[in-house]
């Protein structure tokens, strides 16, 4: 295994370190000068309004978009040869906003394909991994023969997350897992996310639902019109005047 970078301050291992990251669509800068850091076993959240560039950030990190700036993943600087396939092999996995499930395949087949790359390089432990995913999401176990396209919104999100976990990721990128879900389901999904942390997975969670995200995260960033405007421990952000006013509402609880 590659020796991981040491953070220095607190001795935790840094999984992802980003400096001066910019992404542009043509001449328009969608993201500018982003700097962030995710440690092992930590949930880091990026909150911000619609159109701030949150999804762009995750797509850029996984290699779907070309970037400028530094990305250091697992102690290795990403160069021009980076690609989605290579990053997936190195344990970075994205659960996209649109879920991108294989609609006309069963839940079980969707999960199985999550382990495709591991299978390809010779890890034939997908059946054990599937049992672990069923432990985390018992609902998927009940639905395992059903077509993915027939699932409810919450179940789809569970399947997208379960499929990502089949790759045994080191860094899980979650794009708006609460999008379009009922409050009760959101609570269940977020409880699961905070459980995943205990497995040692580093999680970068992008959310509009700022309160729910900050409540389970260790550290948070605020992204506004393509730039990070604020960062801090999530406990502090939850009480920060600016965050409260813009993103949490005036003391109103959901």
């Amino acid at each position, binding site marked *: 295994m590659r020796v991981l970078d040491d953070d220095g301050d607190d001795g935790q291992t840094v999984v992802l370190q980003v400096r001066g990251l910019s992404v542009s669509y043509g001449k328009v800068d969608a993201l500018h000068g982003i700097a962030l850091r995710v440690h092992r076993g930590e949930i880091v959240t990026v909150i911000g309004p619609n159109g701030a560039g949150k999804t762009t950030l995750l797509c850029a990190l996984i290699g779907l978009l070309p970037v400028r700036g530094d990305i250091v993943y697992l102690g290795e600087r990403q160069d021009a040869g980076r690609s989605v396939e290579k990053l997936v092999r190195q344990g970075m996995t994205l659960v996209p906003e649109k879920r991108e499930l294989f609609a006309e395949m069963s839940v079980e087949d969707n999960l199985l394909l*999550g382990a*495709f790359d591991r*299978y390809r390089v010779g890890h034939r432990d997908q059946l054990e991994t599937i049992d672990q995913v069923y432990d985390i999401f018992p609902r998927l176990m009940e639905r395992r023969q059903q077509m993915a396209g027939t699932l409810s919104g919450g179940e789809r999100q569970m399947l997208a997350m379960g499929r990502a976990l089949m790759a045994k990721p080191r860094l899980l990128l979650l794009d708006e897992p609460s999008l379009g879900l009922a409050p009760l389901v959101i609570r269940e999904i977020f409880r699961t996310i905070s459980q995943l942390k205990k497995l040692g997975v580093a999680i970068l969670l992008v959310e509009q639902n700022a309160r729910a995200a900050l409540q389970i995260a260790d550290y948070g960033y605020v992204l506004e019109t393509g730039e990070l405007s604020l960062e801090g421990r999530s406990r502090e952000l939850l009480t920060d005047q600016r965050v409260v006013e813009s993103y949490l509402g005036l003391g109103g609880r959901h």
Partner: protein
Amino acid sequence: MDLQIALLLGQDGLTNGAIYALLALALVLVFAVTRVIFIPQGEFVAYGALTLASLQAGRLPGTVWLLLALGAVIAVVDGSLAIRARQFKRLPWIVLLSCGVPLLLVGALLAVSAATLPLPVQVLLALMLVVPLGPMIYRLAYQPVAEASVLVLLIVSVAVHVTLIGIGLLFFGAEGSRTPPFTDVSLEIGDALLQGQTILVVVASVVLIVALYFFFERTIYGKALRATAMNRTGARLMGISGSLAGLLSFTLAASIGAFSGILISPITTIYYDSGFVIGLKGFVGAIIGGLASYPVAAAGAVLVGLLESYSSFWASAFKEVIVFTLIIPVLLWRSLKARHVEEE
């Protein structure tokens, strides 16, 4: 027409229909996974048949040179890409795979006289010579433009088709070839005489279709191909790259094409350009299935075979016209039935 003729024609139609069904499945597969309308599908039929014929005639088939040339070009292209990316460790593998393997095959062919080998070995050799052309052509012609529109990919297909026809004429000459039948057995059921070769074609096609079904339903690579067809982004995020899926589907399409050619070469005389029309009839079947449904495509292709056979009896001169005119009502029905969805 009496019953005997009807049965004879039906038998003929089923045999051809089985071949068209195989080709239709390959066309649907390639289109679903890569969005390529694979016009050169038929050339693999001709190459398969003519390569086998050359081997049986004791000649070195021209396919050998094509294999070597494509291998060399791929070695140069992939090699320079690897050098630019500073992945020097990959170099020996690239050279070994794209040059070494074809060379080994040629060496084997020169060492033994293929004409004296048993038929199954000859068939295997022919497949080994023709099938690798599929992924090689994908690598050189399609992979660099994999993200382009369906139209661009179609234009590439036309170019590959014309090139392969020309190369076929160069390698195999203008004369047609027919290989000896795999079996001389014939069955007499009532009035009808059933040719062994006919049974063989139908049985082999059915076996191949069942094998394909198991590949897509039971193996993780088959599922990965289906997943790519359903959701390209989703598949990429699982590490199923477009080029892997493309190489895999082109390998399957080339295998199906070459195998079909080998199956029919004892029944019909195959010329260097016969593949095109055969492939087009498979394409009519694939269109009936909307280039999406495997079972409907296969059934449509069998229908094409039967229609062709019976129309050759009643209106022999219009045989092809009738078969290809079938596509018009089908397209009309499809366009009335389907919601119009803009692509790209």
